[in-house]
């Protein structure tokens, strides 16, 4: 090196320049879109239709595994390596809004004339923080009961009960009939959702004083907590850990338990993993409530589509997000992924309307409540799961668990209290 004549350097740089120009001629850089897990896999199938409709725009989908998604997104934000648009789990939206990572979408949604009332309220609510909308709901997710209709019928319950007292009676009857040490209900100990859903049904506020302190020792949460623990104390639910969940489908088929609380992804999983003749033996039911009249509340989950504030291609990326939110694309995406559309109009699709197992979700999606929308929530929720497990295993009493939860939540919220006090002081 270093011997080349000035002329050859000139020729080399000329060639590089030409190459660069040719790259330019192929069109602008593609829209970088990150999606998680299976969604990231199947959403690629929608790209050709989008590119055909929008000449000059290209989309590059990057699939991120769910288990590492949260870390990867935060790292990408810190490293200024965010994509142009991304799928965000609804519970993560507050965190990324606090970071200032997301572009407010309210004006764009109005300009696009996307009807807000077409989205399930609970699902859209998760994307609204401080009066501004930061994401477009992509698919809806909530939890309800999957149950063995045949086992319930054998125990004398031809129709699925609708209230908790009736469900308890049914589960106890199933349990009494299973001689081999089986259980009636599976509540995975690693999940914080079941106790929180019970608390929301009690009308309990999970946090208090503007989400500044934990509110877990309040009467409402306490009642829900004892309800939750009683499933284990009465032997209706087994105290099994996450490692056994891998065999959930086989165990469900074998009748090891007659019901479990889970989300819409199980519709596809159960159909894929279990033989076709098993289809008639299971069903879904909305979360039981306090009475037979109305289903109980469940948690608003799912994922939304967000635009990255620092993206240089916001307009193009928005076209892609608006495309994904169209009812026809929601239906197409449902067929690909099994995820439930976040828009009511997409539910007119016969495949969804005529599936009795999806119908329970349609009912449940009208009865949703969001978890507290603060960045600390995921962390607090992980402690709820931890203390619920400790209480189930008898490592700590119900009282101790709730006191510890309040203490830990208060500590995690210390910074939030300081920030709020500071911003109020400035005002």
């Amino acid at each position, binding site marked *: 090196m270093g011997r080349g004549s000035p002329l050859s350097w000139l020729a080399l740089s000329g060639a590089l320049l030409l190459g660069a120009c040719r790259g330019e001629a192929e069109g602008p850089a593609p829209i970088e879109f990150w999606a998680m897990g299976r969604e990231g896999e199947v959403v690629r199938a929608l790209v050709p239709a989008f590119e055909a409709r929008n000449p000059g725009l290209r989309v590059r989908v990057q699939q991120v595994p769910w288990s590492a998604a949260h870390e990867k997104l935060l790292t990408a934000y810190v490293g200024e390596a965010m994509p142009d648009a991304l799928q965000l789990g609804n519970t993560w939206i507050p965190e990324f809004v*606090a970071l200032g990572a997301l572009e407010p979408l309210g004006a764009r949604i109005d300009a696009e004339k996307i009807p807000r009332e077409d989205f399930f309220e609970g699902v859209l609510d998760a994307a609204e923080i401080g009066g501004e909308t930061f994401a477009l709901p992509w698919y809806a997710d909530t939890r309800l009961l999957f149950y063995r209709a045949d086992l319930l019928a054998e125990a004398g319950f031809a129709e699925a009960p609708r209230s908790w007292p009736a469900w308890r009676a049914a589960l106890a009857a199933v349990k009494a009939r299973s001689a081999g040490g089986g259980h009636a209900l599976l509540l995975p100990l690693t999940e914080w959702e079941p106790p929180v859903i019970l608390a929301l049904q009690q009308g309990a506020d999970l946090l208090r004083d503007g989400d500044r302190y934990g509110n877990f020792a309040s009467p409402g949460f306490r009642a829900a907590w004892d309800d939750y623990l009683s499933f284990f104390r009465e032997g209706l639910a087994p105290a099994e*850990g996450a490692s056994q969940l891998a065999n959930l489908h086989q165990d469900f088929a074998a009748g090891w338990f007659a019901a479990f609380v889970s989300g819409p992804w199980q519709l596809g999983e159960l159909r894929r993993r279990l033989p076709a003749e098993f289809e008639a033996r299971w069903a879904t039911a909305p979360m039981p409530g306090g009475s037979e009249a109305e289903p109980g509340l469940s948690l608003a989950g799912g994922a939304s589509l967000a635009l990255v504030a620092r993206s240089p291609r916001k307009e193009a990326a928005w076209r892609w997000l608006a495309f994904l939110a169209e009812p026809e694309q929601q239906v197409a995406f449902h067929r690909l992924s099994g995820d439930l559309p976040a828009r009511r109009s997409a539910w007119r699709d016969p495949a969804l309307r005529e599936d009795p197992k999806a119908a329970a979700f349609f009912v449940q999606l009208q009865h949703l409540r969001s978890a507290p929308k603060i960045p600390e929530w995921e962390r607090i929720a992980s402690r709820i799961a931890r203390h619920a497990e400790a209480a189930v295993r008898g490592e700590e009493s119900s009282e101790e668990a709730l006191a510890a939860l309040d203490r830990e939540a208060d500590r995690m919220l210390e910074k939030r209290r300081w920030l709020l006090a500071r911003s109020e002081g400035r005002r």
Partner: protein
Amino acid sequence: MNPAFWFVAPALAAIGLFFFVPVAASLGLSLTDFDIYSVADLANLRFVGLANYGRLLEDAAFWTALRNTAYFVVVGAPLSVATSLAAALLLGSRLVRWKALLRTIYFLPVVTTLVAVAVVWRFLYHPRVGPLARLFEALGLPAVDWLGDPAFAMPAIILLAVWKGFGFNMVIFVAGLQAIPERLYEAARLDGASAAQQFRHVTLPMLAPTTSFVLLMTLIGHFQLFAEPYVMTQGGPGDATRSIVLLMYEQGFRWWSLGQAAAIAFVLFGIILAVSLAARAAGLLGGGDGAEARP
């Protein structure tokens, strides 16, 4: 200036830039409450002095993690070293054939990926269909939910770690055994020493420097337990397998409490340093002056 300086300068610069600067930075980090809000705006960063360390002392999760790690070190490390030594002796024995094959098989777990191995071991440990459960059933022993029962999860992790790691130390022991002159055994045999006596009075003393090295490295490695619980149990059931490094990882990369995570890192560093120095002071490790190695 001494010309030698210029020879070591590149290495020193690299170590300074890539080791001492980051360590100093994270020491500084451990004195702040760096978190998700500070990522958004550095104006949200507060200097908190030693509060992160103080908070650790009163955090039950930290003490649990410390206890779990100590359990893993105290039970796992000696077990791992003993297994390595036994395997090395087996490979050194005249009675065993196919030594090259056995050595390869024993070493295989070291080079396999833990994540892949974990899938197999999760199946082995399954409480109803796992081979271990079948074996227990055949022997008439009560069923054990290995990874789901807080009392058995750590032993299950230790078993996996020993299996995964003993091959590496075994190779070092094999080298150490080969360095023992055959004439010492001949002399011992002439004096009428039994096999057990030869092991006790020739092999062990001659192997002392190797054992010291292996034990110290194993201790340090075991204090940094992370991957096994991360892929097998995620720290569960309950907190039964949450190690210090796993706790640090969660604080730092899951919750982005980098200040708190940095404090955990320095506490762990202090513990490892203290244990290593204590072991040296007690003459157990590294300080072999050869006096006891003389047969």
